[in-house]
């Protein structure tokens, strides 16, 4: 938030080596020293995880006053900053001790830097050089460990461990992991699992960045390895949920190698979830669309603009329906809507989903009416949390991590009452014990956050809605002090836990200063969202709380960009279908759309009725399979565009590498389509003008939108940047490091001549090591500072440690949401009469979310398929203990789960929180959306169980083979580097 960014922490004077510095008083001395861009080595301290004083690396000499020449050694990370304090970094005894610490660590650290994946971006290497430790006194042997197989994502090499405890502090303390720990003692401390096996946390990949050396490595990156300094990187935005974490994507030789965290003080801070870190694999996937289909080419080698124009020319004046996408950029969606016209635009949402979208717009409009929607860093400051109908850990994992931190606020406050600062991590945890910020949750399935809640209830969506309505009523009655009987009666009809839930929740909500309600669309229930609307209305009217904060989540990276484009004329999936049934439409343009809302039969109908199906996508799916024309589009790492996150924050992702032609950004294809169609809604004069000047980059596109659209929401920030292009500061920033060794010899197997640098049509970054330093742009392609080769170098670019970046002065654009879909939900949504729950009410099953399968793009990543299949060898279904007992089934028993069109076998587990008519489990294939499905259960035969296990094993093996195949192919492609001279349109390469 802008005002918080400006809020400068209180500064005091600290004399460091007799020079006065202004240092923040709110953090420890180490953070203070680092914030002055001075070098002080450290290991166990982490800006987000605080201090524990384990490694003893950050020792400095503290002097009593200017006459004190001896001073005493203190650990900077454990020392608070005080006004006028005097410390020495260069004092001999402190310097000697710091070197001794490194040399002690090195007694067991192997000399395997040349073969270590961390080499070149190793914090331990940097710190060793920094302390000056160069020669080895230790004569003994080094201790060795056995490593573990921690799954497909994280490699393990324990011999390199320097025992800083950061991994367990992140995995267990910060992220709430359960399957990782510390074993042994003395200099035989082992960090790992009890036994080999895939790490269960959604945040395991952060171990790679948190570990100061090469104990935990990115296994996918290591399998197709390159040094950090040889990567070509660009600042990007995660494409796998609506949180919008900032990432830095690295590429070499035409294949994407890895995703690293890109620090953003507002959003992701220092951490990403595994979906964000590893989900990028879909870019290299087997199913990528790399060739245009249905275009007759003149040249054998490449598709030209003329080819495309010719192929599309006979569609002039024909009516197309355009289906936008929540995973396509804002630009592409706007463009598509512009081309087909608002009356023929659809989001591919069913009627039900449109209602949800309408309710979301309504809530967002409310949420924005009182200011910006909370960022993750603001969420971490909340003192009351209510989550309704959303498994955040699975749908928007990074936000779940922030909620975990918010849960600590009660303990942090208690510690503050005892004079302990929040950065004193172990002390604060000692004091807070199990004390948590009030946290309540209503959902259909158990979630990983439940353990932090004060109370949670598992309910069917209708019951969740009912609970929210009763809660609203109860608050009304409490405020107005008219305890109307209706409310009492409704309350009395609830079960005891439900009553208790409501009464506790109200008490805690009233006491909260910054309460937060999080909800989302994963249950696809407009009714729940409408009920939350009533709750927020009630709280706002009665001015109960200082400020109620509302966060609404959705599934995809640009769900909210798409949501902002939906209005009353937007077609639902059913309407699209009826248009085709009535043969009113010539064809359909699917923009990065797998049309999940349509059944196979419905798709067949469209295929039969549509004369032309045009698909723009990066990965094959059932829609691209029967399209007439397929345009291969750029995946997130290959193009430029903007995503809108759950706050409405518009963030730009930048091209990391120029893909092989004819892969182009969706909006570039759409520009070609528009040009060919000439059926656009804009005045011909503008069209002519723009035709003379083809749109090459986002700046031109935005200018074009600003001129031709009545409501183009983005500011002209980038346009202005172009105007300042020659002022020097805005020279392109290098995508490669200064020491990138590869670029000039990339094509040496073809010719000895140095390949020309690819020209970027965008203005911000260059495909070269030549250009401005990374920090000259507020979005850094990668982070590096002299002496700091790891991501820890971000310290050098923050105003204050863990604060905003120095260059981060421009605020992001925010979309404002307007409830433009339907009229707001009728007030009739009163508390419904209680359903009579008969013994015969059907058992409804809800799938638990899935990290690896939950988002379409990342689900195409080879490692994610493998992990999914590994997980799906054994399904689990949860039933209430009473209903299991009634059937005489035991925990662990195999059951057949039967729906209308599917039968799978899963293992029974009892959950005493479940009501009788509700079941949940990890079987995602029973229903494609997270809406419930009626199931019947039967005991499974042993032979069926064995058969399913066998089938699943086969599927797993296939996924394994496929992953290996992809890897082999990538390695082969390294020998044939695509060279582009211009990263522009079709004819420019």
């Amino acid at each position, binding site marked *: 938030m802008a005002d918080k960014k400006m809020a400068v922490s209180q500064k005091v004077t600290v004399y460091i080596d007799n020079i006065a510095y202004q240092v923040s008083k709110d953090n420890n001395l180490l953070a203070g020293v680092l914030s002055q861009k001075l070098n002080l080595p450290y290991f166990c301290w982490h800006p987000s995880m605080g201090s*524990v*004083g*384990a*490694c*003893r*690396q950050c*020792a400095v000499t503290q002097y009593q006053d200017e006459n004190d020449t001896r001073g*005493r*050694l*203190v650990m900077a990370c*454990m020392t608070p900053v005080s006004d006028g304090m005097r410390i020495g970094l260069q004092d001999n005894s402190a310097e000697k*001790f710091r070197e*001794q*610490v490194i040399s*002690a*660590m090195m*007694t*067991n650290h192997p000399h395997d830097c040349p073969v270590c994946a961390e080499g070149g971006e190793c914090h331990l290497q940097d710190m060793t050089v920094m302390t000056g430790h160069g020669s080895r*006194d*230790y*004569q*003994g042997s080094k201790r060795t460990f056995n490593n573990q197989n921690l799954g497909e994502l994280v490699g393990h090499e324990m011999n390199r461990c*320097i*025992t800083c*405890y950061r991994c367990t502090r992140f995995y267990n303390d910060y992220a709430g992991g359960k399957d990782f720990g*510390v074993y*042994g*003692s*003395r*200099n*035989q*401390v082992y960090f790992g699992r009890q036994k080999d096996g895939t790490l269960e946390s959604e945040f395991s990949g952060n171990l790679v960045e948190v570990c100061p050396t090469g104990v935990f490595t990115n296994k996918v990156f290591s399998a197709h390895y390159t040094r950090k300094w040889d990567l070509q990187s660009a600042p990007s935005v995660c494409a796998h949920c609506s949180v919008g974490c900032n990432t830095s994507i690295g590429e070499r030789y035409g294949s994407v190698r890895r995703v690293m965290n890109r620090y953003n003080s507002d959003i992701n801070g220092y951490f990403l979830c595994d979906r964000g870190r590893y989900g990028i694999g879909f870019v290299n996937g087997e199913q990528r669309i790399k060739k245009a289909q249905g275009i007759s080419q003149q040249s054998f080698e490449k598709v030209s603009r003329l080819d495309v124009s010719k192929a599309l020319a006979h569609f002039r004046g024909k009516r197309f329906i355009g289906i936008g996408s929540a995973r396509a950029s804002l630009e592409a969606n706007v463009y598509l809507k512009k081309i087909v016209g608002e009356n023929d635009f659809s989001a591919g949402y069913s009627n039900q989903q449109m209602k949800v979208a309408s309710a979301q717009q309504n809530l967002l409009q409310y949420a924005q009416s009182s200011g910006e929607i909370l960022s993750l860093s603001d969420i971490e400051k909340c003192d009351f949390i209510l989550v309704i109908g959303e498994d955040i850990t699975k749908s928007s994992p990074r936000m779940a991590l922030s909620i975990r931190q918010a849960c600590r606020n009660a303990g942090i406050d208690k*510690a503050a009452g*005892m*004079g*302990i600062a929040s950065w*004193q991590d*172990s*002390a604060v945890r*000692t*004091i*807070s*014990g*199990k*004390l948590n910020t009030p946290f309540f949750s209503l959902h259909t399935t158990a979630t990983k956050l439940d353990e932090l809640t004060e109370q949670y209830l598992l309910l069917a969506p209708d019951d969740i809605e009912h609970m929210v309505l009763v809660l609203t009523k109860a608050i009304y009655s409490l405020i107005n002090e008219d305890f109307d009987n209706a409310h009492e009666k409704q309350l009395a009809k609830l079960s005891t836990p439900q009553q208790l839930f409501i009464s506790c929740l109200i008490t805690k909500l009233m006491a909260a200063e910054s309460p937060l309600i999080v909800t989302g669309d994963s249950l696809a229930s407009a009714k729940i969202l409408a009920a939350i609307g009533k709750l927020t209305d009630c709280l706002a009217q009665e001015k109960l709380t200082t400020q109620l904060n509302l966060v609404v989540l959705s599934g995809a990276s640009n769900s909210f960009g798409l949501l902002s484009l939906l209005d009353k004329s937007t077609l639902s999936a059913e309407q699209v279908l009826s248009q085709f049934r009535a043969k009113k439409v010539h064809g359909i343009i699917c923009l990065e759309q797998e049309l999940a809302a349509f059944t196979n039969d419905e798709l067949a109908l469209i295929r039969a009725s549509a004369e032309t199906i045009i698909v723009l996508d990066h990965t094959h799916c059932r829609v691209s399979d029967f399209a007439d024309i397929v345009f291969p589009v750029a995946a997130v790492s290959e193009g430029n565009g903007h995503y809108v996150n759950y706050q409405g924050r518009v963030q730009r992702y930048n091209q990391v590498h120029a893909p092989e032609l004819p892969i182009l950004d969706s909006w570039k294809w759409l520009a070609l389509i528009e040009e060919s169609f000439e059926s656009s809604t804009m005045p011909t004069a503008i069209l002519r003008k723009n035709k003379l000047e083809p749109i090459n980059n986002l700046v031109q596109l935005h200018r074009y939108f600003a001129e031709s659209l009545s409501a183009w929401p983005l500011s002209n920030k980038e346009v202005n940047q172009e105007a300042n292009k020659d002022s020097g500061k805005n020279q392109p920033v290098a995508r490669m490091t200064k020491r990138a060794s590869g670029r000039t010899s990339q094509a040496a197997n073809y010719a000895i001549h140095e390949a020309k640098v690819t020209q970027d049509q965008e203005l911000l970054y260059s495909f070269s090591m030549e250009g401005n330093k990374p920090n000259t742009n507020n979005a850094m392609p990668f982070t590096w500072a002299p002496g700091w080769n790891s991501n820890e170098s971000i310290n050098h670019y923050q105003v204050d440690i863990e604060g905003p970046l120095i260059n981060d002065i421009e605020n992001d654009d925010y979309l404002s949401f307007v409830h433009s879909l339907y009229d707001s939900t009728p007030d009739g949504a009163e508390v419904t009469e209680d359903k009579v729950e008969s013994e015969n009410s059907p058992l409804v099953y809800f799938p638990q979310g899935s990290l690896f399968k939950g988002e379409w793009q990342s689900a195409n990543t080879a490692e994610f398929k493998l992990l999914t299949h590994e997980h799906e060898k054994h399904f689990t279904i949860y039933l209430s203990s009473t209903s299991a007992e009634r059937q005489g089934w035991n925990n662990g028993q195999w059951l057949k789960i039967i729906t209308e069109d599917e039968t799978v076998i899963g293992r029974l587990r009892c959950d005493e929180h479940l009501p009788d008519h509700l079941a949940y489990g990890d079987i995602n294939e029973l229903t494609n959306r997270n809406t419930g499905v009626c199931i019947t259960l039967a005991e499974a035969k042993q032979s069926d169980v064995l058969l399913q296990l066998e089938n699943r094993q086969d599927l797993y093996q296939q996924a394994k083979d496929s992953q290996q195949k992809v890897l082999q192919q990538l390695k082969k492609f390294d020998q044939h580097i695509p060279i582009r001279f211009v990263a522009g349109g079709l004819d420019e390469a």
Partner: protein
Amino acid sequence: MTELLKRPLTQLVNLESPLSLSQYISEGGYQGASKALHEYSPKQVLDLVSNSGLKGRGGAGFPTGMKWGCVPMFADNDDKAPEFKYLVANADEMEPGTFKDRYLLEGVPHQLVESMIIGSYTMAANRGYIFLRGEYHLAAKRLQQAIDEAYQHNWLGKNIQGTQFSFDLYVHTSAGRYICGEETALINALEGRRAIPRAKPPFPQMSGLFGKPTVVNNVETLSNLPHILKHGAAWFKALSPDSDSGTKIYAACGRVKTPGLWELPMGTTIREILYQHAGGMADGLKLRGLLPGGASTDFLLPEHLDTPMDFDSIAKAGSRLGTGGLIVLDDKSCPVAMVLNLIKFFAQESCGWCTPCRDGTPWAVEVLTRIENGRGRKEDLDSLHNLCDFMWLGKTHCALAPGAVEPLKSALRYFLDDFEQHIDHGCCSYKQSTNQQTKLKGHCHG
């Protein structure tokens, strides 16, 4: 009675068959607890203990009254129910050369139970734990017996002896780490966590076991309480001839004529303990040096024999009183081997939290092993000095490594010749001359 007044702690010790509750009561037991519960307010007991000058017997010598005084007590108007609090007896006696607590635990378990009642009453603790060294099987059995008896006779449990005071007491046998002797590591272990010392502040008195106010006292410290209650602060002070109050259980081991332990007035000289009580050095041996208070104290030399064994005097002589258990080095045993043996123990028992201790102690073991085996180099002495400096106070997370360094540091000062001879001659001269004996003592390896 006069005898009791001289040796209050050990007077009732019976290692063969410790006193049952009724026997203990008939010998004057539980009078202190009774007096505290019925006649004194908690504040009065606290003042009494403060006035008595009782200091912690676990090694650090921190005044007990001051430690208790930090515990948050009742609100000003006394009505509110007190916050949950814990009292923990530190019976994790693992310091090499120290066995005084075992003597009390096995010999007179009821004394500790009574002490815990008094202590918990003083700080209004609701629950107590005796954190017992895992190997003390017999003590565990006897303590449990005593606790069961106390419950039966309403010395523990609800409304003890008809008062408003309730207190539960449990024995917890340690899974076995030396570091559990450090009070916050002990608390972590008691909570089921890794035994790693906590960052301070918060001190346990504010936020200890399960986040509640907690006091951890050594067994010997606690055992003084019934007697202070019974006989008063002035009596307790008068037990000792010098500035420290009370008695102390001193012990001696090594090659002395009669190793053992003796309860003596605080401030008894080393000479008296060693020559009067331990019978002097074994035949044919001369005193070379001694560790005055367990393995983590500096060596003292024969010239220090007349130093009184109290906190201040021993500190002035350049060492620490520690646990008061003397470990004696004779002239036929190798000081290098002795130091190596000790530091091996500390390297083994490092919790692995901070770098100097975790990686420094094994490094010292590596260097000392080479020197002892005759493969030392001149530079190794510099390495040892550096390591001592590296692990010194203020540089580590807790006191384990500085304690571990104390014998090494003082050995380098007092027995440097031996180190140099090892290096110059490429062998350990003691091993050759007294091969048999060293093998028996197990000091030298290979």
